[in-house]
């Protein structure tokens, strides 16, 4: 395999690394969104009923 032919493989390797990073961030982001929505509801419930200290 000459250098020229290797180009697509090496490029593919780079893209693969990038996809892995992206997937990681995407999953974290989605989990975060879910958590933040749940928190919004919890805080909404919390506000009106002020806890008795």
């Amino acid at each position, binding site marked *: 395999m000459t*250098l020229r032919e*290797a*180009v*697509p493989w*090496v*490029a593919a390797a*780079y*893209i693969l690394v*990038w996809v892995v*990073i*992206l997937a990681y*961030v995407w999953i*974290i*982001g989605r989990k*975060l969104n879910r*958590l*933040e929505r749940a*928190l*919004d509801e*919890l*805080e909404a419930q*919390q506000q009106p009923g002020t*806890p*008795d*200290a």
Partner: protein
Amino acid sequence: MRTNRHLTTTVPLVLSIVLVPLTIAMAFWWTGEDVDQGLSQKIFYFHVPIALTSYIAFAFGAFSAAMYLWKRTEAWDLRSYVGVHSGTIFGTLVLITGPLWAKASWGVWWNWGDRQLNVFLILFLYYCAYFMLRFSLDEGERRRSASAIFALLGVGLIPMSFLAVRVAQTLIHPTVFTSIGAAMPGSFLLTFLVGMAGMLSLMVLLISVELRGKRTAARVLQLQRSARGEDA
């Protein structure tokens, strides 16, 4: 607060989704073949931007630390912590891509001649100590102040490490290797800049996501405490 939550995450996300593959495409199909290093030179478009991004992240960490010492709000402490954290992540990437490149180009895992790498070796040890310090102090004011001071010291250490390695350069490895130079042909420079933009948007993305994660954790803690009737 809710509206700009998406902005600070989705904007860098879209940017990096576009820019990073673009850098790969440009690096491999647009820039000419580097005469002596061949394919291994391609990592340059990532290795150097990652290194510069790491410096920027540490600078952001130090700036937030200074702001914490002044404003004393937990938000600035969190930003400083996340800034240093993402700086360390990129620093680790530098310490991975560096040897890869050195092995591919010169057959040696650690190229002492490369000043950039040696500086990162020092910084890596230093900023790992930041987390050691942070986790050995109990949560509270004392930990935030100590972490802030340590992050601020980094501002001194980065230039000093660079100078120290340069001063010691004449002895460790006489052949000086310069990879960065404005004399790069147009296509190289443009690809490098796109790569730089890509890495910066990735950094902003990482910081934004991690900050949101830490804030969510803080809000959960706050809710638990107010449920127990302690709202301080």
